[in-house]
């Protein structure tokens, strides 16, 4: 594994988006992962539609009653991959633009599919495996506890205590080997995470969180997706 790795430098990451006042983080995490996978498959970076997921994806967990993807009220990335697989794919952002509101109608147009899911899977709770899957398969959809993100401005976040109760969907796009940590007097490796709260939040829309201890549950729910070649 390389010591440092960043999919942004390789052109696999679209500009930071903004979910607005809508609990649709899960859809941004999903599109981000598929945008990266589609880039690996086709060599082209295409921004995909979160609004299609918000409006059209109501995939449910068969094991848990009422646990369904539900627009601004929340969802799960794996369910969204399942929806995308069943629906046939996702449209371009420009063909189905984001409004950040729940609507009753789904405007999915099958003739305008821009990216398809071939398969998806979850990655084991092992940081080397997470890094290997990131390097091999592209950006990963991950869940995190976002309590420290409400006040985060920059730097490598490495709280002494952080709940592992997952409540936010984000995109893992890379890692670094040495984020400077003056207080603890040592260099700290970190994950680079793309968020969906606009470029004015965090480090131009990105979050750095330290590696090594499943901080804020960042290693707990990691999903990788492969894109299918469009026919």
């Amino acid at each position, binding site marked *: 594994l390389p010591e440092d790795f960043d999919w942004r430098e390789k052109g696999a990451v679209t500009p930071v988006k903004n979910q607005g006042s809508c609990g649709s983080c899960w859809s941004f995490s999903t599109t981000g992962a598929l945008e990266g996978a589609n880039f690996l498959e086709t060599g082209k970076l295409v921004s995909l539609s979160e609004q299609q997921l918000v409006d059209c994806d109501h995939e449910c967990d068969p094991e848990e009653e009422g646990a369904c993807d539900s627009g601004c009220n*929340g*969802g799960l990335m794996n369910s969204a991959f399942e929806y995308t697989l069943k629906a046939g794919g996702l449209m371009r952002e420009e063909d189905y633009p984001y409004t950040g509101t729940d609507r009753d109608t789904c405007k999915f147009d099958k003739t305008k599919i821009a990216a398809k899911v071939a398969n*998806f899977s979850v990655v084991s709770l092992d940081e080397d495996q997470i890094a290997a899957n990131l390097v091999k398969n592209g950006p990963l959809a991950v*869940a995190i506890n976002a309590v420290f993100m409400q*006040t985060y401005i*920059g730097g*490598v976040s490495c709280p*002494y205590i952080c709940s592992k109760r997952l409540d936010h969907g984000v995109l893992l796009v890379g890692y670094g080997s040495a984020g400077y940590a003056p207080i603890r007097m040592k260099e700290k490796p970190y994950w680079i995470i793309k968020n969906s709260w606009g470029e*004015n939040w965090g480090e131009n829309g990105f979050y750095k969180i330290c590696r090594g201890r499943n901080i804020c549950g960042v290693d707990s729910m990691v999903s990788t997706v492969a894109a299918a070649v469009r026919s």
Partner: protein
Amino acid sequence: DTFSDDQLIKQVTDGSDELLGAEHHFTLFKRKFGKSYASQEEHDYRFSVFKRNLRRAARHQKLDPTATHGVTQFSDLTPAEFRRTFLGLRKLRLPKDANQAPILPTSD
């Protein structure tokens, strides 16, 4: 060598330093993030939330010293409002039937 930090730096406030200039910070916050409130009551309430969040940011800074914490676009929201409005992970566990990614070689 005989001087400690306490002797070098004289405390001139009452200790609640994270709230020093809170009103000014709130004015800057409103301007930076284009915030406006419908009524004076709402404004006053949001200011009280903002002050609580300044204290919270200071706590986060102590707990998370390698990052910088402070005023963000969410500083006028309570933690519950923040969760309700901007977080949306619906389930806490993965489906049992989820495919497991194959183990990849990581040495060399």
